[in-house]
């Protein structure tokens, strides 16, 4: 044990490796929960309902639970590895320590692209929501969405720039409101409080049950991922939590439990109130299904609550994405996988300020120039590649540092079953994605292959070979 207090105001985030300015350790489990659930919850408010269009209501439920198992494996594996490799960068840092530099570079890119694209998609959605408010209030027929898209990105970038505690406390408040809105809508429409308004038997009878058979279930899996996409983002808070061994597993596992509840309730409410043909068309039909469900309930208070919930979920997701993308970019810069200039920490706000600034124009360009469906698809595919890396990662982690060799904040049960299950589920998800977005999948893999070649031949010579490994771990088994 060290002889000085690292949690003191003067020494927090600084240490024996020569660190003069480090990220601030101020977060608790609730912030970790808010980061993970905040990124994801927008997927409950919109997007998941394309699964209904692909295969009907039951297919969407099966996709919801299939993806739920996949992400439960992700959350358990992440909780174990990140509570041990507690550094900014999350899965990038895990890959660096456990597999090697080329995998680390790729995983870092998956993370940055997945979160920056999702941030852009959220900003587009926020602009759309504000234009809908303008239209519904009779203000204007066609509002220019661009200033609102830009404002969302600039405001959240400013918040992230100013400090992680305010950023994630903001996320905690708006995510809690958005989640509570789902619970209140469920209690109000299901018959638990007052008369029930759902009509599951009528809306899910006959053709509506499984309109395209089991192939529809397979096609629905792609959009089932929406219910949970981003929960793995909790790992990016690893270097800013007060107690990584406690806060990361606690926040991540509480987050996936919250999402499993929110996803199932969302499905139950929406398929019980909205005909599947309308619910499944997320472009010309139900763009925001929970909001539409509230409108069908006929209660003005619920309409307002779910409208606010939709906007808050969108903001929370964009906010968490800026936080996570900047940490991954920062960690790569710090290890010289990217120019070391990005590895700077703001001496007053203690945030990776250059990484935050650098990613702002990229997010703006995608938000203003690229169609929403392309942005979202690129984000999902990058996420899927990242999940495929995780089983390999945890198997090697357990092999190189067996139980009892290093302290783990959390030990996930039944190893290697979750890893094998995750690998199998990812394979099925790839096939499902290939059915609908084969061209994008191939294009993205080609992009990452080209990026890998660039890293191997041009960038690797600059990487801090030894200095990047500062964890006081024993030598891995077999080395």
């Amino acid at each position: 044990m060290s002889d000085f207090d690292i949690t003191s105001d003067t020494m927090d985030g600084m240490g024996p490796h020569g660190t003069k300015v480090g990220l601030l350790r101020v977060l608790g489990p609730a912030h970790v929960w808010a980061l993970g659930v905040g990124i994801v919850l927008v997927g409950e408010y919109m997007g998941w309902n394309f699964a209904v269009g692909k295969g009907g209501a039951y297919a969407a439920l099966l996709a919801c639970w299939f993806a739920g198992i996949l992400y439960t494996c992700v959350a358990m594996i992440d909780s174990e590895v990140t509570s041990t490799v507690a550094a900014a960068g999350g899965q990038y840092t895990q890959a660096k320590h456990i597999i090697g530099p080329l995998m680390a570079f790729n995983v870092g890119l998956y993370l940055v692209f997945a979160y920056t694209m999702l941030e852009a998609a959220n900003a587009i959605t926020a602009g759309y929501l504000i234009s809908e408010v303008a239209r519904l209030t009779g203000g204007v027929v066609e509002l220019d969405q661009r200033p609102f898209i830009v404002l969302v990105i600039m405001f959240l970038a400013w918040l992230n720039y100013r400090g992680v505690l305010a950023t994630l406390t903001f996320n905690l408040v708006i995510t809690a409101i958005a989640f509570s809105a789902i619970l209140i809508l469920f209690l109000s429409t299901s018959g638990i409080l007052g008369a029930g308004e759902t009509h599951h038997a009528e809306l899910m009878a006959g053709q509506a049950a499984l309109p395209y058979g089991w192939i529809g279930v397979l096609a629905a899996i792609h959009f089932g991922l929406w219910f949970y996409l981003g929960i793995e983002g909790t790992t990016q808070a690893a270097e800013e939590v007060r107690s990584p061994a406690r806060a990361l597993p606690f926040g991540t596992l509480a987050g996936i439990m919250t999402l499993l509840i929110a996803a199932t309730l969302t499905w139950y409410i929406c398929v019980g109130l909205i005909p599947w043909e309308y619910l499944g068309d997320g472009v010309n039909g139900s763009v925001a299904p929970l909001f539409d469900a509230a409108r069908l309930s006929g209660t003005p208070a619920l309409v307002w609550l779910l409208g606010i919930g939709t906007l808050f979920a969108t903001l929370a997701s964009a906010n968490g994405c800026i936080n996570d993308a900047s940490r991954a970019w920062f960690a790569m810069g710090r290890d010289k996988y990217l120019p070391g200039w990005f590895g700077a920490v703001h001496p007053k706000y203690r945030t990776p300020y250059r990484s935050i600034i650098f990613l702002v124009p990229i997010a703006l360009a995608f938000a203003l120039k690229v169609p929403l469906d392309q942005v979202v698809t690129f984000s999902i595919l990058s996420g899927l590649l990242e999940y495929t890396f995780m089983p390999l990662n945890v198997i090697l982690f357990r092999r190189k540092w067996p139980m009892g060799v290093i302290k783990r904040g959390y030990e996930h049960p039944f190893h290697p079953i979750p890893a094998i299950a995750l690998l199998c589920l990812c394979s099925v998800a790839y096939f499902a994605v290939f059915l609908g977005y084969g061209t994008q999948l191939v294009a993205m893999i080609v992009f990452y292959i080209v990026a890998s070649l660039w890293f191997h031949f041009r960038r690797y010579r600059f990487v801090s070979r030894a200095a990047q490994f500062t964890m006081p771990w024993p030598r891995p088994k077999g080395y």
Partner: protein
Amino acid sequence: MTFWGFMEYAAWALSAVFGLYIVTDWLRTDATYPEDVLTSSREGEIEAMTEEHRM
């Protein structure tokens, strides 16, 4: 000018204010502190100080 027309201009103006704040502070910070201080962060500090990873 309609309410929503005003809101569009307000959104552009607020975006510019946030952007200006960030860029000004960035340039001032870079000019005030030496590069080796700003990029001195290293991972694993808390582990190095509190744990030796011996069971």
